[in-house]
């Protein structure tokens, strides 16, 4: 018998200081340390508190509309000609994406903290909308930082946030996209730390954010695991999810990590193609470094300056990635692949026409890889693709590519 290495205890990560192996941690200026300590202390206390969990579960059921279905995409499966493709329908959540799982959870934390104002960064606007939504519900003041470039390309979401009563602050510094919005939100937090709760939208940032955002999104994987057993009587053979910061992917993957038979694929944005350098795929073509409070794979130049990323999808247009993904890549538990803009657009159209579901451009990356993967697998095998969001926000982008004025 060959000797196997001892199984990884995935639940033991991050460690007490927020490290996933060499990744994660807390690389912020001193002013924020006490706020992070306070958040960590509160979260450790509440995450095992039955009352808090019950409140979270209640909101997920009655406000978000969970559980989200696990849907067998029969025509898509037939088109791919291989394994069965199941879609985890996060697009059916209130506000139209997985982001709300996390903002509902963090809003409960904000309420417990007694702070009267929440802030957020946003790329495509989905997290901004999900934050503005929970802020409206709880009567909290809300400011959302959004790169000036993204404000232009995601105008419907900007208007949605304003309708919900949030102040949308365009960020003109740096590359004017998600990373700069995050810098500016951090600066706001440093300044207003006494009365402000920062709702980070992805599994990045300083500890404990990667952990708590993961935990709140893990409802996706817990449901998918149960639904798989109920609907096809076994665990899926493979999971596929897109990775920008990586919150929908970690949410799907985490409850399956110990199931060794389940293969996992994180799909990064290949942009114009990895070989062109114009992409947003740090796990495919980046190097470990430090940004936004954690050590993780980054896209940077030879001097350690963060470089501009490129993707048709604003939500994946980020030069870093959650530290747990960096760790899962290095220990070989998850394969990180890339899908180019044109492949994602083709999948966007295919899912729309075969299933009557318009996916977000972010999620279209996962669909595109799911199609490729299915074709390489047997018809009795099962793939779960995380359909992390709906594509209504993207129809203007797609129309513009088609040369159509909507």
């Amino acid at each position, binding site marked *: 018998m060959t000797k196997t290495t001892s199984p990884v205890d995935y639940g033991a990560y991050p460690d007490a*200081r927020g490290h996933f192996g060499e990744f994660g*941690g*807390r*690389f*912020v*200026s*001193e*002013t*924020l*340390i*006490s*706020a992070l300590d306070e958040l960590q202390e509160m979260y450790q206390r509440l995450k095992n508190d039955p009352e808090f969990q019950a409140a979270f579960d209640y909101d997920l059921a009655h406000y978000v509309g969970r559980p989200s279905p696990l849907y067998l995409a029969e025509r898509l499966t037939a088109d791919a000609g291989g394994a069965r493709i199941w879609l985890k329908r996060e697009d059916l959540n209130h506000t139209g994406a997985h982001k709300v799982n996390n903002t509902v959870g963090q809003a409960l934390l904000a309420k417990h903290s007694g702070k009267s104002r929440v802030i957020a960064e946003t790329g495509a606007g989905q997290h901004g909308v999900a934050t503005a939504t929970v802020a409206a519900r709880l009567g909290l003041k809300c400011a959302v930082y959004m790169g000036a470039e993204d404000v232009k390309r995601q105008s419907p979401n900007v208007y949605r946030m304003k309708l919900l009563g949030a102040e949308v602050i365009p960020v003109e*510094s*740096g590359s004017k996209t998600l*990373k*700069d919005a995050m*810098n500016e939100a*951090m*600066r706001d937090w*440093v*300044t*207003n*730390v*006494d009365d402000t709760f920062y709702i980070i939208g992805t599994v990045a940032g300083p500890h404990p954010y990667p952990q708590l955002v993961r935990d709140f999104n893990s409802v996706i994987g817990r449901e998918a695991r149960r639904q798989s057993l109920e609907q096809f009587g076994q665990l899926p053979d493979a999971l596929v999810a897109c990775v920008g910061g990586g919150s929908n992917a970690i949410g799907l993957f985490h409850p399956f990590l110990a199931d060794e038979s389940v293969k996992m694929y994180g799909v990064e944005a290949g942009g114009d193609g990895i070989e062109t350098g114009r992409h947003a795929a740090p796990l495919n073509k980046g*190097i*470990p*470094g*430090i*940004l*936004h*409070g954690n*050590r993780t794979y*980054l896209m*940077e130049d*030879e*001097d*350690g*300056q*963060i*470089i501009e990323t490129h993707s048709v999808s604003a939500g994946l247009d980020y030069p870093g990635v959650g530290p747990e993904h960096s760790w899962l890549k290095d220990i070989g538990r998850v394969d990180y692949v890339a899908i180019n803009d044109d492949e994602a657009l083709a999948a966007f159209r295919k899912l729309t026409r075969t299933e009557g579901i318009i996916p977000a451009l972010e999620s279209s990356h996962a669909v595109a890889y799911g199609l490729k993967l299915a074709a390489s697998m047997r018809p009795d095998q099962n793939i779960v693709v995380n359909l992390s969001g709906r594509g209504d926000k993207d129809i203007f982008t797609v129309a513009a590519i088609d040369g159509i004025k909507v």
Partner: protein
Amino acid sequence: MVTEANRIDRRFARLRSEGRKGLVTYIVAGDGGLENTVGLMHQLVASGSDLIELGVPFSDPMAEGPVIQKGHERALEQKVSLRKCLALVKEFREKDAETPVILMGYANPIVRMGTEAFADGLKEAGADGALTVDLPAEEAGPLNDLLKARDLRNIFLLTPTTSDARIAEITRLASGFVYYVSLKGVTGAGHLDLASVHENLARIRRHTDLPLCVGFGIKDGASAKAVSADGDGAVVGSVLVSAVGESADAAAAKDRIGALVAEMRTALDT
């Protein structure tokens, strides 16, 4: 115990013996033209600066307000790398063997260069220490050890939100001087609260004999004098970076920062 070999220690020992306050000045390396930076550094010294913090430009300067962000962006347009910053210190040392210089910046360029290569580079260039904004005490260990082994100083930030337990922990690691951030906010902010500075410096003083310098929100001689009353010095950055940014050429930049520093020096000494 203070080793007199390091220029930072020597400078603060001398200031204390003379009963004077230190003036720490910050500019961004390469801002206003890479070829002009060393000249600006000499001007800072000539006008009365005791210690120079040379800002290493970074694409994502999270702790900076708009003025210093712009300085970083101007410097990055000229591709000013960490290696170039070290070369500037070396060039500065050709004509100034006494004024302490530290590099102030963010962790990622250091990680990219290699932490040990960075420590070696500081020593070789004639720099005296480093201040890395996003390396708080819990993440600073490796760099701290490398600097210590080379008799270089590691400057830590303390803030109004730092607990007593952390002050104790950080001052155990800190060397050279301690940089007290006067307010909750980014560099260049305008809400300085002198009562809070007074109270917090007293709190910090209970834990350390290291020189205490106060920065963030210091705009002129009067505010420099006020914040350093209970400490050992004042740190000024945004007004200098703003002056460099607004100057039409190197000569004008020299004149403007010279006048600003001279005014603060006079205020501190009277």
